[in-house]
Each structure stands twice: as structure tokens, then as C-alpha cells.
């Protein structure tokens, strides 16, 4: 049982008064999609009030009716052709409604961009063209409207076509077509106009039916952003299901799969679903779930791909196109949250390459921040690597949004992976070390006086593995052996040093940096500095290691291991006795020549 007919979302954009509503009214009327008698009623009301009938009134009449709650949808209207059903998404032209326009246009598969042939290209002709392109609406047809006001002149049409094509070329958009129309008179909407015999292309309705509906993603390399990992053990279900929606390509039982950025591999054991016939395969667009032949530890946010196919990029630093709709501007060195596919990461604005001012459409290379409604190109840096495609390769896994102060404040698409360059962290450490103001006591002198060397010891592993108990016992043991040692509890920092970060979701990177900076200072003071971090991964450790340089770090993992390539210095099994764990660590400190002796 299905609705049978194909359906397409289209959005109609353009400058105020260039005729969007008239185009919509025409499409509804000429396809017979209006409620019975509506057209006649509006004509009659115009006659009574001695005002000329306009197709735009149809839309207003429909909206009034909807507002009274009889029919329904304020934000959408419907019409059908022989080929399929269309939903017109109402995208407000006023700049104050940019957030609504974006929300509407992002759901469209194609766009009609209306330009008044008499008035020519205006501010919103450009801005909407740019926004529609950035939102990924690939099929754009430009309607040169009000041709009746320019005597159906081919020259006027051709000039508009040349000018606007040049503008679109600057933002890498190639329109599907240009159609000269008079929406008011009906020329080239449903039938070819006799008044423009020079025009040989499609009518608007023919053009709509030519647009391709299904995004042809099945042919592309397999991409599966891991949305979540389910195990409903309490309901007596032992399946460990990797859940998400296939973004592109397809996969089947027996295929080898690779998870990025962790680099782990496995093989698809089964395709899971509820209340369907058994499945062997999942293709683009399908909400799916898989079990694997091996038990590997992966997290939501990874990208599952097939190793035999072209690979996505993995990196921390990339050049992007971005648009900003946040109340506060986007500024450098502030931490934001990035959401790309199912991945979440802390991100900073590293550099602004150029911005396009939304009001006068001039490019600027000198701006220090990205303001509301700006469109620009910039370099972003995440605190840990994420997997993505540059949009040229696959758009669904290359687009991201940025969250500021709990709200989506911007969006964009990755243009290029720049991960080979110096990272913000490396630059920060270089600056810090360059400006480090050392005292007169040298590290070796401290070591001689203390009878041990400095060390930063990190306990990690899943929550609840007893890390803190062992870490505190180690502190006590070393202290009784006369060492200068200090244990720092995470709760202590949360309410103290990190109190300014509050409950902010995007502060993980900054919290980690502060621990690293503390380690740098305390190991410089000659201490053995101990702390714990839940579930650290390769990048957390790499970050701490870099921040603590030139001093050393020692990593003890307890219980299940969250690392992909990193080998901790010591692995303590789950359930190991505390005293035993402490002597293992102490033993390692001896081997590494940090301490010379340890008595239990």
C-alpha cells in the first residue's frame, strides 16, 4: 500500500515584488489545483472592489482561509501535474525571516528563482541565489518574469541571462535553465507563448517535470554515519546493533566495513529491522541497523564506509564555505559545537579567508568576525579528527552546522582538508613555550632535591572501573615513600577552575586544555601529578601529551580500552585489586627511572 505518485518539494525565491506569489497563483490555477470556485470567487471580489484581478490574490485568499482553520497548511501549498505531486514550500522573502527561509529551502529538491525582467537583478536575487546554492539545492531554474513590461524583448532576456549567469558562476552554480515568463498573463507557464516565438525551451511546468527527484546517491561510495549503538540487554536481546541511516551507496551481509576516524574494521553479519521481511542489504536513504561479526568498540559519530571504495577525508583542519544566522557573530578562538552527519566535535574558527557582505554583496578579506547573514569562506579546526567528504565528493557527509549558545547559528560545507598544516594547538604551544618565563631553579636540580623526577600520570578507561580509587591509593603510596605527589579530582576542577564553563555542551576541548596546562605547570614544579579522565581516546591523550611537553606523560588504562591505535603505557584489568594495581604503576615508574625505590 503506498501513495503511488511521486512527490517533489520545490521552493520559490526571489526579491520582494518580483512576482513569487503570482507565479505560485498561476501554477495553482493552471494545474487545476485550486478548490472549486476559488478562482471565480476571487475574480468576483476584485470586480466588486474595482481592482484589477491578480493571481497573487489567490495565494492570499488561500492563506486567509487556512488561517481560519478550515484547510490547513500555512507554510506549504500543493499542486499536481500529470507526472507528479508538488509541494511548494513558502520561503519568506523578507530578510528578517532568513532562518525560516533556510529551514524551508533546505527541504527543497529544486528551486525557481524569480527575477523581474523590467527591474533587473536586485539584492535578494543574489542573496537567495547564494543561499539556495549553499543549502545544496542543485536544480535552479531562473524565471525572467514580467516580460510583458519589456515588450517580450529577447534582448532584455538575453542580457539578464548573461548578467545573472556571470553572478552564479562566481558562486559555482550553473542554472538548469532560464525561462522568460509573464506570470500575470500566463506566458510560458503552462503553454508556450506566441508572443515570444524566439523562445524554444521548456515551459515552467515542463521544466518542473524534467527535474530529477531521487537524488542519485545509490551509485556513490557507501557512507553510513553511526547514529547510535544499541544493546537492549534488559529486554533479553543480545544483539549489538549499529544504528543509523545510509547516507549514500549500499552495503550487504558479508561486506567488509571500516570505521573512521578510529580505523577499526569488521564485517557485516546481519541487517536488522522490525516488522519487515528479512534483509540482506541496505541502500541510501534507508534507516538501518547492522550487527558485526566481531565485537569492536566504536562510538556514535563514526563514519562507516567500505575499505574497497574511495575513502572520505579524516582531519582536524579544513577550509569551508559558511553562512551565519546567529545573534552573536562568529569569532576566533571561541569554542563552538560542530555537528557533521552523526559526528559532534568542538570547533574553533581559525582563519577568515573572505566574507561576502549580505547587504551590498561585496567581498571583504579584512573582516575579523563573521556577522549575522554573512556568507564566507574560512578555516575551521576541530579538537579531534572527524571523517567527512569534501562536498564535491559527497554532499550529505560534507555539510555541517555550528551550534552557539544552544542554538544552530550557522551552516556550511567542507571544501578542502587542510590537516597537514600547523594546528591551532601546535601554534598555541609554540607561542606558550616561546613566552615561558622560567625561574632560576632547573628541572635537574629539583629532581636531585626531590629524589625523583616529575611525571604526569593519567588514569583512563570506562566510567566505574575504579580509576579514582587506584589513583588516590597511588598518591598515598608515593607520598609515604617521600615523593612530591598530587592527585587532582575532576570534580574539584568542575566547580573551581572550570566553573566558568558551566554546563556548556561545547566545552570538552577547553576542559581538556586546562588539565594539560595544569600538568605542564605542576610537572615543571617537579611534582608527580596524577589525575583521571573518563574514556579518553587517542586524541585526548595526544592533546594532553602535546600540552604537557616538554615534560612526560604516563597513561594507565583500566578496563575496556577506548583507544584505536594508541597503546597505553600500562593496561590494568577490570577487577584488579587496588594494592596490586598501585604496585604495577609504581613498578613502571621505577623502570622508567622516575622514582628509584618504592616500599609498600
Amino acid at each position, binding site marked *: 500500500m503506498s501513495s503511488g505518485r511521486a512527490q517533489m518539494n520545490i521552493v520559490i525565491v526571489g526579491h520582494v515584488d518580483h512576482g513569487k506569489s503570482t507565479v505560485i497563483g498561476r501554477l495553482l490555477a493552471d494545474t487545476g489545483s485550486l478548490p472549486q470556485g476559488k478562482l471565480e470567487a476571487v475574480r468576483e471580489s476584485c470586480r466588486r472592489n474595482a481592482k484589477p484581478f491578480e493571481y497573487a490574490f489567490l495565494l492570499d485568499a488561500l492563506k486567509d482561509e487556512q488561517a481560519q482553520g478550515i484547510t490547513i497548511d500555512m507554510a506549504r501549498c500543493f499542486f499536481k501535474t500529470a507526472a507528479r505531486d508538488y509541494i511548494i514550500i513558502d520561503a519568506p522573502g523578507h530578510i528578517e525571516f532568513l532562518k525560516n527561509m533556510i529551514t524551508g529551502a533546505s527541504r527543497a529538491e529544486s528551486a525557481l528563482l524569480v527575477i523581474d525582467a523590467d527591474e533587473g537583478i536586485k539584492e535578494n536575487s543574489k542573496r537567495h541565489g547564494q543561499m539556495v546554492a549553499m543549502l545544496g539545492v542543485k536544480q535552479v531554474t531562473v524565471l525572467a518574469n514580467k516580460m510583458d513590461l519589456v515588450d517580450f524583448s529577447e534582448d532584455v532576456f538575453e542580457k539578464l541571462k548573461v548578467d545573472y549567469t556571470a553572478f552564479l558562476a562566481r558562486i559555482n552554480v550553473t542554472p538548469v535553465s532560464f525561462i522568460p515568463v509573464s506570470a500575470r498573463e500566463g506566458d510560458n507557464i503552462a503553454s508556450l507563448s506566441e508572443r515570444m516565438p524566439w523562445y524554444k525551451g521548456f515551459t515552467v511546468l515542463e521544466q518542473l517535470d524534467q527535474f530529477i527527484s531521487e537524488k542519485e546517491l545509490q551509485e556513490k561510495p557507501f557512507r553510513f554515519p553511526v547514529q547510535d549503538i544499541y544493546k537492549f540487554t534488559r529486554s533479553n536481546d543480545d544483539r549489538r546493533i549499529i544504528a543509523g541511516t545510509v547516507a549514500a551507496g549500499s552495503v550487504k551481509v558479508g561486506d567488509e566495513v571500516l570505521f573512521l576516524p578510529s580505523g577499526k574494521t569488521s564485517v557485516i553479519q546481519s541487517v536488522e529491522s522490525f516488522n519487515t521481511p528479512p534483509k540482506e542489504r541496505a541502500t541510501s536513504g534507508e534507516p538501518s541497523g547492522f550487527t558485526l561479526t566481531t565485537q569492536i568498540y566504536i562510538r556514535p559519530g563514526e563514519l562507516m564506509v567500505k575499505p574497497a571504495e574511495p575513502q572520505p577525508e579524516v582531519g582536524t583542519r579544513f577550509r569551508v564555505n559558511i553562512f551565519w544566522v546567529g545573534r552573536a557573530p562568529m569569532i576566533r578562538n571561541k569554542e563552538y559545537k560542530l555537528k557533521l552527519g552523526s559526528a559532534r566535535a568542538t570547533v574553533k574558527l581559525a582563519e577568515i579567508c573572505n566574507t561576502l557582505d549580505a547587504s551590498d554583496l561585496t567581498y571583504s578579506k579584512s573582516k575579523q568576525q563573521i556577522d549575522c547573514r554573512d556568507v564566507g569562506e574560512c578555516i575551521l579546526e576541530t579538537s579531534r579528527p572527524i571523517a567527512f567528504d569534501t562536498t564535491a565528493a559527497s554532499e550529505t557527509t560534507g555539510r555541517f552546522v555550528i551550534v552557539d549558545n544552544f542554538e*544552530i547559528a550557522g551552516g556550511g560545507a567542507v571544501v578542502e582538508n587542510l590537516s597537514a598544516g600547523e594546528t591551532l594547538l601546535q601554534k598555541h604551544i609554540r607561542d606558550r613555550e616561546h613566552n615561558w618565563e622560567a625561574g632560576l631553579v632547573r628541572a635537574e636540580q629539583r629532581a636531585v632535591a626531590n629524589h625523583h623526577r616529575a611525571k604526569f600520570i593519567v588514569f583512563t578507561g570506562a566510567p566505574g572501573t575504579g580509576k579514582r580509587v587506584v589513583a588516590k591509593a597511588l598518591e598515598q603510596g608515593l607520598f609515604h615513600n617521600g615523593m612530591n605527589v598530587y592527585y587532582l579530582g575532576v570534580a574539584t576542577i568542575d566547580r573551581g577552575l572550570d566553573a566558568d564553563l558551566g554546563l556548556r555542551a561545547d566545552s570538552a576541548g577547553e576542559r581538556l586544555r586546562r588539565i594539560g596546562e595544569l600538568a605542564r605547570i605542576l610537572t615543571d614544579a617537579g611534582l608527580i601529578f596524577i589525575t583521571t579522565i573518563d574514556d579518553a581516546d587517542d586524541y585526548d591523550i595526544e592533546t594532553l601529551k602535546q600540552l604537557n611537553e616538554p615534560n612526560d606523560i604516563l597513561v594507565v588504562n583500566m578496563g575496556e580500552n577506548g583507544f584505536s591505535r594508541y597503546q597505553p603505557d600500562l593496561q590494568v584489568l577490570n577487577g584488579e585489586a587496588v594494592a596490586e594495581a598501585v604496585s604495577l604503576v609504581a613498578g613502571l615508574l621505577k623502570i622508567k627511572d622516575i622514582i628509584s625505590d618504592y616500599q609498600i
Partner: protein
Amino acid sequence: MDHLDKLEAQSVYILREAYREFKSLCMLWSIGKDSTVMLWLARKAFFGHVPIPLVHIDTHFKIPEMIEYRDRFALEWNLNMIYGQNTEALAGKLTFPDGNTDRITCCKYLKSEALKNTLSGEWPRYRMDHEQRTYVVDEGRDPYTGVIVGVRADEEGSRSKERYFSPRDKDNVWDVGDQPPEFWNQFKTDFAPGTHVRIHPLLDWTEQNIWEYIEREKIPVVSLYFNLGAGIRYRSLGCYPCTNPVTSDAQTVLEIIEELKSGKFSDIAERSGRAQDSEDGGLETLRRDGYM
């Protein structure tokens, strides 16, 4: 993928996103066809399980079949079933059926107030104990920060302005004019302390889609939706003093679909049998104050 497959895919994606991002999440189940489809979609999303508590606001005036149906499937599908109620208003008979308030005020007391206080945990919640097969007072009183609601954009004007993930402030107020943008399937999943987010997985479904999906998946729905011989059926379910059946011969899901497509209901609003909508302000007023 056909149109229903796409609607299903989007709803499943939204449900999984909500489950991933909200630690304290619940789903409102009104026992009606829409939220029952939503419950079914949760079983799709979570491979037969429903790892999210279901909350029903029991006004005490619901048609009895609805409560029987609720408890039957709560047990059968192993649901974490919770209900809340305005016991004070009921004890004081501050209701429309008791003749002491108008319809809108009654809705406000028995639905909006009960909902607000059940979600916040200020009033007791009653949870189905699967061993005793009866309701017990729930010990969990944490406020729900994510509330999944089965509203559809095509139902009525104010609902067509909703987002998939729609923030509400401390007082449940919805700022229609200034909503966060939503694009590329990225939603508002971050929220300030004290606020909560309403999640709408069915926003793009129409009444007809709902029935087509019920038919395709063979989802059991309350018998009140069908003409059982008297030539009447309910098109929309609520409290019996304020909900009227419509005259209809439709005895099966397929007949209901036919009726919606080309028959007598193709141009009559679905909620026309719900009396509170036609009182002053109606649903929009109720919704601003926290009604679903």
C-alpha cells in the same frame, strides 16, 4: 523508496536522534491513531523495543475503550507506561462535565495543567508494574527535558509552523516568531538548563498517510475509529463529553482511506468533531499554554 518509506525513514531518524541526545526523554501517547503510529515507529527505530517511557494524560473522561486498549498494549509490548492526572481538579469537580467550567478551562485543568506537572515531576506519576499488572506511584520525579509529541503539520494552522525539534522555555512558552533554523537533518538538540524541547517525528505526515501506514504495517488501533454497525465512527479521539462521532460507513482501514481520498471527508477538517476547538481562541490559545 516510496513516499511512506521516506516518511518512515525521517521519523525513525528523528526518534533515534532524540534518544541519542536527550537523557531524560518521554513520548506522549494519547492512544489515538497518530501517537500509536509514532509508538510503532519507535519499535521500528529500536528494533522491536521501546526504550522511552510513554506518558498518557488521563483526564478521567476518556472513552473507556481507550484505557483498556492502552493497558493491553502496555503489557503486550512491554512498555514503560506512565500516566498523570489532575486529581485535585477531579476531586473538586472543577470540570466541564460537572458543569463547573467551560470547555477550554476544563481542557486547561485536566490536560495542560496535568501535562505540565507530570512532565516536570511535580505531581505523582503512575507507572505500570509489569509483575503486578497494575499502576504504582513512580519513584522517578526528574523533569523530562525531551518530550516526543505526535502532532502533524496538516492538522491545524498553528501546528504547521512547528519545527521537528521545538524549544519551550521554563513556562512552556513557545516563541513562534523566533524559532531556531533546522536544516540538513540537524536539529536543536542542545538546550539551556530549565528549558525543554518538544520533538515532532510525525510533522510531515497527513491524516491519509497515517491510515495508509496503519494498513501497510497492520497496526492495531482502537475500534472506536470504525463503524461497528451503528453507522457512526470517531475520526479524532478525546474525552467523551466533548468528542462527537461522525456518520460514516467505513468499517475497515481501507474504507477509511477511501473516504479521506475521494469520499465525504476529502474537504472537511479532521478535528471538526472536537468541540473545544470552536470555542474562543481554541487550539492556538491552548497550545501556547502548553497543550499539545
